[in-house]
C-alpha cells in the first residue's frame, strides 16, 4: 500500500513539473502546448547522448535540461510566431495545431534516429527504509529535485520583480503593458522556463525509471489532465493536482491496469471541469 502511495507521489511530482509548464504557457501565451511532453523527452534524450559521450551524470542532466530550454526558445521564436499574431480563440486553435504537428515531427524524428532507445542513469540505487517503506534513493532524489524546482519557481514568482511581472501578465495583460512590461519577451522567457522544467521531468524520469523516445504523447496527455484538474491559472493547484493524480494513477495501475487507469484519470478531469468551471473551461469561453 504505502509503496504504491510513494510511487504515486514520485510520479505525481514529475507530472506536476510538466503540468505547471503547460499552465504557465497557457496563462501567459494563450497557447495550449501539445508538444510539452516532447520537450521532456528531448531533454532526456539529450542527457542520454551526453552520458554516452562520456559526460558525468550531473553534467549530462544539466545539458539535457538546457537542451529542452533551447528547444522551447526555438519553438517560441519560430513555430509559434504565426499563432502570436492572433488573439484569443484563434491563437489557441492555431497554437494547438502547430504544437500538435510539431509533436509528430519530434516523435517521428526520435523514433527514426534513436529506435529502441532509453535513458537510464543506472546509478547505484540503494534502498533505504523510511517509516517502514523501502524507498529507492533515486526516486527520493527525483522527488527532491522536483520539490526544489517548485520552491524555486514559487520564490521567483512571489519575490522577484520579473516573477511579479509574469503574474501580472497572467492576471491582466493590458494592465501589464500599461506598466511598461513587454508581454512578448516575457512570454518567450516563460516558454523557455517551462521547457526546462519539462526537461527536468524527462531527466529525472531516467533517474528513477527509464525514459523512452515514445513517451512524449503520454507525458503531454498526463500533463494536460493535471493542468485541467489543477485549474489552469493556479500553480499551487497544479502542484497538488499532480500529486493527487499521480497517486490515483499508481493505485489504479496496480489494481485495475494501465488502460483503465487512464479512463479513471480522464473521468477525474471531466468531473473537475463540471464541478469547478473556474478551471480550464473558464478561459476557453
Amino acid at each position: 500500500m504505502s509503496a504504491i502511495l510513494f510511487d504515486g507521489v514520485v510520479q505525481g511530482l514529475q507530472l506536476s513539473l510538466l503540468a505547471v509548464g503547460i499552465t504557465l504557457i497557457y496563462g501567459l501565451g494563450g497557447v495550449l502546448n501539445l508538444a510539452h511532453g516532447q520537450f521532456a523527452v528531448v531533454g532526456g534524450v539529450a542527457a542520454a547522448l551526453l552520458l554516452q559521450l562520456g559526460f558525468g551524470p550531473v553534467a549530462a542532466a544539466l545539458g539535457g535540461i538546457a537542451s529542452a530550454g533551447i528547444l522551447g526558445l526555438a519553438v517560441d521564436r519560430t513555430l509559434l510566431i504565426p499563432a502570436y499574431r492572433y488573439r484569443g480563440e484563434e491563437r489557441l486553435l492555431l497554437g494547438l495545431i502547430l504544437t500538435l504537428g510539431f509533436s509528430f515531427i519530434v516523435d517521428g524524428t526520435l523514433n527514426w534516429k534513436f529506435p529502441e532507445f532509453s535513458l537510464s542513469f543506472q546509478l547505484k540505487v540503494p534502498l533505504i527504509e523510511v517509516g517502514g517503506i523501502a524507498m529507492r534513493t533515486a526516486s527520493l532524489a527525483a522527488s527532491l529535485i522536483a520539490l526544489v524546482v517548485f520552491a524555486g519557481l514559487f520564490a521567483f514568482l512571489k519575490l522577484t520583480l520579473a516573477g511579479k511581472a509574469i503574474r501580472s501578465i497572467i492576471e491582466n495583460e493590458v494592465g501589464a503593458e500599461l506598466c511598461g512590461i513587454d508581454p512578448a519577451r516575457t512570454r518567450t522567457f516563460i516558454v523557455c522556463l517551462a521547457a526546462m522544467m519539462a526537461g527536468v521531468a524527462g531527466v529525472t524520469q531516467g533517474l528513477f525509471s527509464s525514459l523512452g523516445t515514445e513517451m512524449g504523447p503520454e507525458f503531454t496527455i498526463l500533463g494536460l489532465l493535471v493542468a485541467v484538474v489543477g485549474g489552469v491559472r493556479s500553480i499551487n493547484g497544479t502542484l497538488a493536482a499532480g500529486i493527487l493524480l499521480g497517486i490515483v494513477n499508481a493505485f489504479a495501475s496496480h489494481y485495475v491496469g494501465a488502460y483503465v487507469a487512464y479512463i479513471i484519470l480522464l473521468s477525474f478531469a471531466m468531473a473537475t471541469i463540471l464541478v469547478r468551471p473556474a478551471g480550464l473551461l473558464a478561459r476557453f469561453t
Partner: protein
Amino acid sequence: MLVRVEALHAGYGSAAVLRDVTIEAHPGEAIAVIGPNGAGKTTLLKVIAGMVRPARGAVRYEDRYLTGLRAYQVARLGLVYVPAERELFPTMTVLENLELGAYRNVRAAQLQLGYVFGLFPLLKERRHQLAGTLSGGEQQMLAVSRALMGGPKVLMLDEPSTGLAPKVVAELYRNLSQLKAAGLTLIVTEQQVALALALTDRAYVLEQGAVRMSGRSAELAGNPEIRKAYLGIN
C-alpha cells in the same frame, strides 16, 4: 510642445471614430477633452497610448513620432495612460501593483513610493491588501498611483470619476490638482465637465469624432453653448 496629436484619423473597421483631430499639450499643462458619450475621447487616448493604431495622422511626443510603438514602449517613454477600467491586478497586493508600476524605473521606485504614499496615505495603510478588495475610489487612487510610480512626464486619465461617489470624486480631483501643481502634464477626458474645466488650463470639445471647439478652460466654462450642452445651465 510635449505632446501633439496631428490630423489624426482612427476607427474600428469601417466606422470612423476620430476625424482629423489635432490637439496639443505643453509641458506642465493640464488639458481636458470633453464631449458626449461616443465622441471618441477614449479612442483618442488609446491612440496616444499605443493601444489603437490610427488610420492616418501621427502622435508626436517630445522630439519624436510614436508611430508603430507598442503600448508598453509608449509607457516606458513616460507617457502613461490610466484607462477608465483601471486595469489593476486584483489578486495582487496594493504594494505589488505599485512595484509593477515602477517596472521600467526600478531605481526610482523607493522614492516614488514615498511620494505616492504621501499623496494617498490610505494606500499606505492598505498596502498589504489585495487590490481587488479595495473600494472603487481606492482602486482609482491605486490606478493613478501605479501610473505615477514610474515617474511619468505625461499622465492621461480616461474618465477618472467613473463610478465614484461625488465626495470621492472631489477628493480625487484635489489630488490631481496637486499633481498639476507639481508640474506634471495631464490629459483628462471627463463626463463631469465642470470638474474637468476647473482642473485644466485648456480644453477641447470633441463631438462625433472631430474637435468642435477649443480654448482656455475658464473661457469655455463661461461659454453659453458649453454651459447649455455640458454644464446644464441655461
